C-alpha cells in the first residue's frame, strides 16, 4: 500500500471516530437522533454515550499516526534523495484531517462543557 493511501485511510479512520464522538456528544441536545434513527436507534445511541471519550482518544491516536506518516523521514530519504513534493501532499492530508478532527471534537465536547458550566 502506498504511503498516500495509508495516510488517507488513517485520516479517514480518525474522521470516522471523530464523527461518531460528535454524534454521541450531540445526541441529547438536539432532536436529530430520533428523526434519523428512530426511537430505538436513539436509545441505542444514547447507550453508547460512555464510549465518547474513547472514540475521541482513538481519533487523536489515528491523527497522530497520520502526522507520523507525513513527517517521518523514510529510509529512502536519508540521503535527501526522495521527492519532497510527495511529502507535501501527505502533510496537507495530515493538516486537513487535524482541522476536521478538531472541529468534530469541538462539536462533541461543547454540549457537555456548556451543560456543566
Amino acid at each position, binding site marked *: 500500500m502506498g504511503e498516500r493511501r495509508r495516510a488517507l485511510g488513517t485520516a479517514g479512520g480518525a474522521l470516522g471516530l471523530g464523527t461518531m464522538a460528535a454524534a454521541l456528544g450531540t445526541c441529547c441536545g438536539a432532536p436529530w*437522533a*430520533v428523526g434519523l434513527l428512530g426511537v430505538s436507534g436513539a*436509545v441505542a445511541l444514547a447507550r453508547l454515550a460512555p464510549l465518547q471519550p474513547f472514540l475521541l482518544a482513538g481519533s487523536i491516536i489515528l491523527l497522530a499516526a497520520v502526522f507520523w506518516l507525513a513527517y517521518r523521514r523514510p529510509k529512502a530519504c536519508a540521503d535527501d534523495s526522495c521527492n519532497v513534493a510527495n511529502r507535501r501532499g501527505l502533510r496537507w492530508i495530515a493538516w486537513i484531517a487535524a482541522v476536521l478532527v478538531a472541529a468534530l471534537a469541538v462539536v462533541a465536547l461543547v454540549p457537555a462543557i456548556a451543560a456543566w458550566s
Partner: protein
Amino acid sequence: MRTFVTGLVLALTLIGIAGCSERSEGRPAPASPASYTMLDDGGQQLRLAFNRSMGSVRLVLLVDPTCAVCLRGLADVNADLLATTADPRLQTFIVFEPVIGGKASDIAPAASLLRNAHLHLFWNAGGGFGHLYATAVDLRRHGKLVNAWDVWTIYGPGATWGDAAPPRPALLMHQLPTLDNPGYRYLDGKVFAQAARAMLAKLPARSAAPRSGSAAHE
C-alpha cells in the same frame, strides 16, 4: 479509506449491538397513536389526575420526547419497573415537554417504549411546567434554577398536590449535569425501581386502587 469504512461498519455494529442488547421488556411496541392530555403551564390537569390517584405510589416523569438520553431513561425505567408489573397501585404520569424541539407527534413513538397499563400521558406544549416543577423541588445548578426535564420522581401514597406548586417527591433522580442538591442523584433504573417497589411493598394489597382519570393507555 479502508480504515474509514471499517470504522463506519464498527460504529454501526456498536449501535446495532446496543439496540439489540435491550432487554425484551424494553423493546418498543410499534408506534401507535397515544392519547394524551394537554397540560397547561400551571399543571392543573396533572394535579387533578395526581390527586385522584392518592393512595397509590405515583411516578412523575418529565421528559422531552425527542431527547435520546430521556428515551434511554424511559427504556430503563420500563425494563426495570413498568414492564415488570401490572399493579394498579403504581400509577405513572409522564409529562412530555418541548425542551429541545419535541412535538406532540413525537409522543406516540416515545410512549411505545413503555409497557404498562397505568400510564397517564401529558403534553405541556407551552413548556412552562418545567419551571414550575423546578421551583417546587428547588432544582438548582450553581445556585440558579434550572428547567426541570429529564427528571424522574416517585411520590408516596400520601402525597397531595395542593392548590399551588407540586409537592416534593420522596425520590428525585435526573439525567442532568450535577445539581446543587446532593440528594438528587443521576438516574439509575434499578435504584429507581427498587425505591418504587419498596413503597409498593408497604401498601396494603390492592387497596386504594385509584380511579383512572385522564389516563391514556388503560
